[in-house]
């Protein structure tokens, strides 16, 4: 059953231009069938995991020789992130994409993006992961440039240059590992490395991997492209980029390589926690002065990814659980905020906060959902962002990382201030010139936003059952470290 996560979106991407030639409406229907069926299967995968680890051997070839696909706790978590946000963004696109000229190509690229993301998450082979990473990257470069206006092309070019530097660093690291262990299966690499240690080579590979994946996820010394690329894309695509792509391409791949293949140690821990702390602080400081709604959100993505990497970098069970929980929550509320900003732009044709105002009476649903998302990201109880931030902060103090703990608290305060500014300027103050023709956005856009807002509240209220169901198995995969090899190869 596992290849279905790649087959469905890849098949839909292939059929999409044909459907678009026949009738425009077919694309919308096909894309949403694809999104919703992926959502259904990823919810089902929680159930599949109950009977233990699932491995699919491509072509029936056993691990060291063939490519395998693996479904473990971490994979289930990432599949949920990818497919919840993916299906909601596709639902939102139904009405939003009408203002662009070629919806068929948009949906083709979107389905390719989903295929790449699902493939990266489910792959058990390092080179296969790289191939899916490149599929994802190419789809996201071209979706950032989709509007083909001057700013969008410029942002896409910047993203493409830095993204391809990151890809080449990752490929170089894979090549060096391959030269030492002569295998590409992740579990087999891990076993070979534990049999014949080569500390210098592993150190060098680790540096290349961290640089490559940090560039892909926009952590602070490598963040220059993110604040240009994320606002330039169409709104549902921005939601995917900020909510899913930087996490799957950056954080997920980094965790898989560091924890399950190479092995976690205190040096890596300090690198990751410092990357996290710097990203948190600098991201939020850059965000607070922004007046462009989407650019502000993009800088907050840098800061929130800092929380995730900091939590995971602590390496304690509570820290990893908190980091992964924050990864999930951030994907919900940041996508919701990007969809809100898309709705505001759709109705008012501007994203400048100082030109907006008084939208809460004209766009009640957008305003209410954005309030939920703003409070979630700022960490107000009982919404979902509060619990994950609390877990990370407790984990930081338990691990005696006092600097990190205090930075987390301070950044949460500044985030709150920054989102109060958004709420005040965009929705609550009186508009300078009241334009009466601002209307609430169409039905499907509302539906996607409302579903995400309900998820934010529901996960906040029932966070403990959710932790037990999804987050704990995912954290256990990272905690068992290089024993991952044993469970896959069955040795």
């Amino acid at each position, binding site marked *: 059953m596992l290849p279905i996560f790649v087959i469905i979106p890849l098949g839909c991407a292939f059929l999409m231009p044909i459907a678009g030639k026949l009738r425009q409406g077919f694309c919308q229907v096909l894309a949403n069938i694809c999104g919703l069926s992926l959502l259904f299967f990823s919810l089902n995968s929680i159930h599949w995991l109950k009977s233990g680890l699932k491995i699919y051997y491509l072509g029936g070839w056993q691990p060291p020789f063939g490519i395998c696909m693996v479904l473990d706790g971490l994979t289930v978590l990432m599949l949920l992130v990818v497919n919840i946000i993916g299906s909601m963004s596709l639902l939102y696109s139904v009405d939003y994409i009408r203002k662009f000229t070629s919806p068929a190509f948009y949906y083709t690229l979107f389905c390719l993006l989903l295929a790449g993301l699902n493939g990266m998450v489910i792959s058990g082979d390092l*080179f296969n992961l790289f*191939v899916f990473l*490149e599929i994802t*990257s*190419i789809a996201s*470069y*071209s979706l950032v*440039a989709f509007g*083909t*206006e*001057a*700013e969008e*092309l*410029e*942002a*896409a*070019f910047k993203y*493409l*240059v830095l993204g*391809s*530097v990151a*890809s*080449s660093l990752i*490929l*170089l690291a894979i*090549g060096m590992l*391959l*030269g030492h262990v*002569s295998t*590409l299966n992740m579990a087999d690499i891990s076993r070979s490395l534990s049999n014949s240690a080569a500390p210098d080579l592993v150190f060098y590979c680790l540096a290349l991997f961290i640089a490559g994946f940090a560039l892909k996820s926009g952590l602070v010394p490598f963040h220059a492209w993110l*604040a*240009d690329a994320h606002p*330039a894309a169409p709104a549902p695509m921005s939601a995917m980029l900020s909510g899913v792509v930087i996490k799957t391409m950056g954080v997920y791949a980094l965790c898989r390589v560091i924890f399950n293949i190479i092995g976690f140690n205190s040096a890596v821990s300090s690198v990751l926690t410092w990357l996290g702390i710097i990203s948190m602080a600098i991201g939020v400081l850059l965000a607070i*002065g*922004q007046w462009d709604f989407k*650019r502000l959100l993009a800088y907050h993505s840098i800061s929130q990814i800092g929380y995730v990497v900091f939590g995971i970098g602590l390496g304690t069970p509570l820290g990893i659980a908190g980091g992964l929980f924050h990864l999930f929550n951030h994907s919900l509320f940041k996508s919701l905020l990007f969809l809100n900003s898309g709705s505001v732009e759709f109705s008012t044709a501007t994203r400048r906060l100082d030109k907006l105002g008084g939208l809460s009476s004209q766009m009640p649903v957008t305003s209410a959902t954005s309030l939920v998302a703003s409070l979630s990201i700022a960490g107000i109880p009982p919404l979902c962002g509060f619990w994950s931030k609390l877990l990370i902060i407790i984990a930081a103090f338990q691990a005696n990382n006092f600097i990190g703990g205090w930075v987390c608290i301070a950044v949460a305060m500044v985030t709150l201030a920054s989102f109060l500014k958004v709420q005040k300027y965009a929705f609550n103050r009186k508009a300078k010139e009241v334009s009466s023709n601002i209307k609430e956005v169409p039905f499907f856009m509302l539906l996607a936003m409302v579903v995400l807002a309900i998820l934010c509240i529901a996960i906040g209220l029932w966070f403990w059952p959710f932790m037990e169901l999804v987050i704990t198995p995912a954290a256990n995969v990272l905690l068992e470290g290089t024993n991952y090899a044993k469970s896959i190869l069955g040795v």
Partner: protein
Amino acid sequence: MSLYVLCFILFAIGIYCLLVKKNLVKKVVGLGIAEYAINLFFILLGYRPGAEAPILDPNRVITDFVDPLPQALILTSIVIGLGVTALMVAIVVRLYEKYKTFDIDEIRRLRG
């Protein structure tokens, strides 16, 4: 060993060209150089002096052969590289239409 060092120097030249040069077309060329350096590196991993291609032949047994795995990988990597380069060239052409220049210093509408 010296081959590997030369290969890394080629990679460094490519990355330098991609990141430092001001002209968009030179950046495209830089990306090409970096990609080919990595492809060369993979091929060198599988290379053994005097070895043959591993072809299954009923008449004789080949004992000394090069590692075919990196070559298979590089076929994939070349195709990916082609895709990225094509996309990059397309974006460069559209950028030239919008800004009437190839100079990256003049393409700066996004600030802050």
